[in-house]
């Protein structure tokens, strides 16, 4: 399904952070939005997700698979999130983290899906481990699969590779984008580092005055 | 100061009694009292006293259907303050029904018209009170009682200590000062305004004043300072040999009691001449404890129970006061095994059966040579003594 933004604008009181703009993200496509710090990139993601802080105002229509997301609460939008920090729940094991967003159902089936995910993440057998015992790269993989196991219809990535070292970054990029493409999930990536953008993907930049321009 | 005239009249009118009551009225009071709850505000620092009050509660519940609640108080002045605040705020049904009181606190309540009554003449047991032999039942700190408080027990300033360590107990304040000199740092008294401390000072005053008649009338500051010079002179002589050289003082009689038991002090004082015997009996003091009073007498007074003007359970409070005056209750109170507080009744006025309840017996720690009970000086002396002491020794 497609993620469509129409005339979306973000402002802080009278100051306009992002001028009205529109674009559509096709299934499996990852679009990159770039801009300096404070340009409102993260706010854009928050608006799409539905938890924009009350000090900011957002307008415009966001639709996913034809459905208007506006009236829906954040947890009902089926929009997954990835952040700079993995934000794995520290009080749950790796396995419990993965199970968290999964739809209700037969517990055996859920466990099986969880273990499959661990295998795909090359973390087989890690289900009882505590998150803080994993390395940075391992945690990012778990965070990705946790989001994916919730069967999102779109993904929002807020500089997810910023804290990883250079080698890890490359492998993580291909890992993440590969899985998103495979599952045909439209994704919006926000970053200040152009190298993060997937090869051949569209890149938008938020310029001065909040104008969004396609590169 | 004091409550407004209108409010006072309203409260007085609410009272079902007139000044003169007949015997038939007492039956009516007892009937009204049934089912009421009396909040008895009484000092509660002693287990024996608390136990006695609990016993009295059981008795009045069984006999008169009254629920007695002992409200534990650290300082009666607090009750005076509370009643005054409530009356001022227009609270016609107060939190205090009966209060254990005497001295300045009584005087304050009486002056501000915070007391219900006069009611004592209507209590059937009041006729047994020894008003002749114990004049302090009629004059509380030289202030006329006028039926506004009912006598409960007798108190007399008494000293006590370990007989094994004291060869000759001092028989006067002068000897007390000599005793202190011979045993520096081992003797003291509680600081005023603790009433034991104030009474110790009053005792000094009584023993040193040139003309004792001046003590029974109200005095002003200048007059007081003139007659108090000998008292201050004796204290000046005494203080350097006191505990901590008279620069610090225990804050309560209870503390001196404890310090005696610990061995830090040689002498403690009390108002209940039977308290030392009581402490020996309960194992808190050794059996060699002795108690004594000064040769020419020590200050004695009566303690009372009174009913505030805004008491909720007035009838029941009177029934309880009457019960406390009964020979049976007084005898049990005077029993050393229970409390040991001396009775206000005249044994001669009692029926032979009741008189037998008061059989005296010599016990360990009792006062072997009881001395005269000297009446309290007039209540106006108290703040003057306290202020003079604070000025001279307080900082």
């Amino acid at each position: 399904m497609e993620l469509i933004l129409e005339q979306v604008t973000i402002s802080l009181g009278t100051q306009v952070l992002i001028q009205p703009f529109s674009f559509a993200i096709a299934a499996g496509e990852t679009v990159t939005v770039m801009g300096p710090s404070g340009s409102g990139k993260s706010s854009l993601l928050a608006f799409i997700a539905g938890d924009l802080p009350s000090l900011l105002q957002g307008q415009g229509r966001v639709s996913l698979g034809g459905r208007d997301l506006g009236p829906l609460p954040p947890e009902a939008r089926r929009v997954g999130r990835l952040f700079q920090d993995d934000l794995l729940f520290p009080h749950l094991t790796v396995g419990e983290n993965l199970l968290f967003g999964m739809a209700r159902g037969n517990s055996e089936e859920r466990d099986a899906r969880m273990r499959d995910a661990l295998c795909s993440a090359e973390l087989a057998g890690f289900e009882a481990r505590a998150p803080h015992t994993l390395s940075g790269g391992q945690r990012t993989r778990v965070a990705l699969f946790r989001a994916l196991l919730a069967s999102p219809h779109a993904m929002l990535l807020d500089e997810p590779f910023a804290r990883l070292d250079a080698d890890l970054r490359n492998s993580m990029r291909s890992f993440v984008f590969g899985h998103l493409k495979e599952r045909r999930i439209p994704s919006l990536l926000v970053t200040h580092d152009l190298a993060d953008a997937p090869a051949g993907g569209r890149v938008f930049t938020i310029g001065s005055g909040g104008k969004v321009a396609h590169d | 100061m004091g409550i407004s005239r209108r409010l006072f009249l309203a409260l007085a009118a609410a009272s079902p009694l007139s000044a003169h009551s007949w015997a038939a009225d007492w039956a009516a009071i007892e009937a009204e009292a049934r089912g009421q709850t009396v909040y008895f505000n009484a000092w509660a620092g002693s287990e024996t006293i608390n136990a006695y009050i609990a016993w009295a509660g059981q008795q009045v519940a069984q006999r008169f259907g009254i629920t007695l609640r002992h409200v534990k108080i650290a300082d009666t002045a607090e009750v005076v303050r509370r009643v005054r605040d409530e009356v001022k705020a227009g609270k016609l049904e107060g939190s205090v029904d009966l209060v254990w009181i005497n001295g300045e606190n009584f005087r304050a309540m009486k002056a501000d018209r915070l007391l219900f009554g006069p009611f004592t003449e209507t209590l059937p047991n009041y006729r047994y009170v020894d008003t002749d032999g114990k004049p302090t039942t009629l004059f509380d700190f030289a202030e006329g009682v006028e039926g506004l408080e009912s006598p409960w027990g007798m108190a007399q300033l008494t000293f006590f200590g370990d007989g094994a360590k004291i060869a000759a107990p001092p028989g006067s304040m002068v000897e007390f000062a000599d005793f202190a000199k011979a045993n520096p740092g081992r003797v003291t008294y509680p600081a005023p305004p603790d009433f034991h401390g104030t009474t110790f000072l009053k005792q000094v005053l009584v023993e040193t004043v040139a003309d004792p008649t001046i003590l029974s009338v109200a005095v002003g500051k200048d007059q007081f300072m003139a007659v108090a010079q000998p008292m201050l002179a004796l204290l000046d002589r005494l203080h350097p040999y006191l505990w901590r050289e008279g620069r610090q003082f225990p804050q309560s009689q209870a503390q001196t009691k404890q310090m005696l038991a610990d061995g830090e002090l040689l002498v403690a004082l009390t108002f209940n001449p039977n308290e030392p015997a009581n402490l020996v009996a309960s194992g808190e003091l050794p059996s060699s404890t002795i108690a004594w009073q000064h040769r020419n007498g020590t200050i004695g007074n009566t303690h009372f129970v009174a009913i505030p003007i805004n008491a909720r359970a007035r009838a029941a409070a009177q029934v309880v006061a009457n019960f406390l005056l009964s020979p049976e209750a007084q005898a049990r109170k005077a029993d050393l095994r229970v409390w040991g507080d001396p009775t206000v009744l005249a044994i001669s006025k009692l029926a032979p059966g009741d008189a037998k309840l008061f059989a005296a017996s010599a016990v360990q720690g009792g006062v072997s040579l009881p001395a005269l009970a000297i009446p309290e000086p007039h209540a106006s002396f108290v703040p003057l003594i306290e202020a003079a002491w604070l000025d001279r020794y307080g900082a």
Partner: protein
Amino acid sequence: MRFGVAQSFGIGLVAFLWGLPLAASLAAFAATALDFAAWNSLLHHPQLPEALPLSLWTGTAGLAAALAAALLVTMGFYGTAHWQKLQTSTAVGLSIPHLAFAIGFGFLVMPSGFLARLFVGGSEPPQWVTAQDPLGLALIACLALKETPFLIAMIWSVLAQGDVGPALAGHWRSARSLGHGAGSVWLRVLLPQIVARLRWPIAIVWVYGVTVVDMALVIGPTQPPTLAVIVWADLNNAAEDINARGSAGAMLMTLALAAAAALAWLAVSLAGKKMRRFMTGGPSSFGVPKTSTTLLTAAMIAIYSLVLFTLSGMSLAGYWPYPRLVPDTVRFAAWQGLIANGGPVVLSLMLALTSSALALGLVVLWLEAVPARWDRALTISAVASLTLPAIAMASGQYRFFLELHLTGTQLGLFLAHFIPVFAYVFIVLKGPFRTFDPRFQAVAHGLNAGALRFWVSVKAPLLKAAIAIAAAVGFSVSMVQFVPAQLIAAGRFSTLPMEAVTLASGGSRSLTAAYALALAVLPMFAFLLAQMLGHSRWRLAWN
């Protein structure tokens, strides 16, 4: 706005149940304290020129000692295996009420006390000037010993906050890499950040120390006593003009504290420059003073144990003269008396459970429903209510409740306990809740979890240590309320602390000790329970 209703509800409830009675009490207090005759009488009080500085001295010295000790202990033990075990000792230390501790400590150090019997002996007690000494050293020692566990617990709460743990780990690594020894890192990097977050607990401890009544009565100086003692006596006096003088005295204490606080703030700002120079002056290999810290902690634990042991002995003792180490006679009358008189225990328990439950509920409602920008108003009110001398607040509260005919009622008594409990619970919970990483909620949204599921499955478990501690603090604060309870109960009810103080005036040491122990046991259970419930199997990364 999504939570508009919840927000109004939250603010409204807090304002009505807590803010309104508080404001009215303060107004009533101010009204009674602004009396010219009373101020005149107060300023002519012969003991005032010594009593006021004495109060400030004892309170400030007590705070300084407690803070130094708490920081030292943190330096020495944080991150080691002993840190967790220390929490248990802290829980015990926190739960002993000040009054009970003072009584036990007094018996330890007084001339005929346990220490003298142990180390000096002889047939007569030495002529020491220990308990109730004129300089207030015994009071300062008691305050310091009692406040150190509180400050340690506050530090622990700061360290448990979401953003602090990882940040500290980061700071630690970078500072070490720059050549600083462990002790130097603490002194120059970590402690300044921790202390900055401890402003309010420090203020509360300080004001408590300066204005405490019951401890000062038992172990503080007497001629002259601290100003707090004089004010309490005045407020309870039978004469109206002396009552007014007491109110004026309470106001004087408040003003003096405010002036001192302003001075301290000024001093810290001026010293700020010097401190920065110290902090950036270059690395030093100063290590953590492990031996001194261990000795200090061991000494404190020893004193606490001795106090508890002494209290137990006192409760069973009959005649126990100097220099015996064991009582001559043993009597159970004290405990029998306590058991026969179970009413106050039950009442105190009920009040503590209900007030802490309501406070927790209300505070969580506020922290969840009301945006953070409203916090400032509530924090200022809460801290103000705790930093005003209790006797000042209580006297105003009594006047206000009297007008409403709430004195001597269960509702009035409940409110009197609820008000300080709410303030403490809010202060303890505010930090952990507000610094909780908001992105966890965003993550949960992405995982199809709504607000309720997020709270139950993520936020509450992650905050359970803070919630447990807050509950225990609320419970204990309620259990030891004396001054307001005494006034509002107006003779109709008696709680455990009221019984204990009344008995202490009678000098039956065994009975007082029994009540003091009873008073300590219940909060002790609460804290131990909080320990167990709040223990996390996940730990923040360290080194």
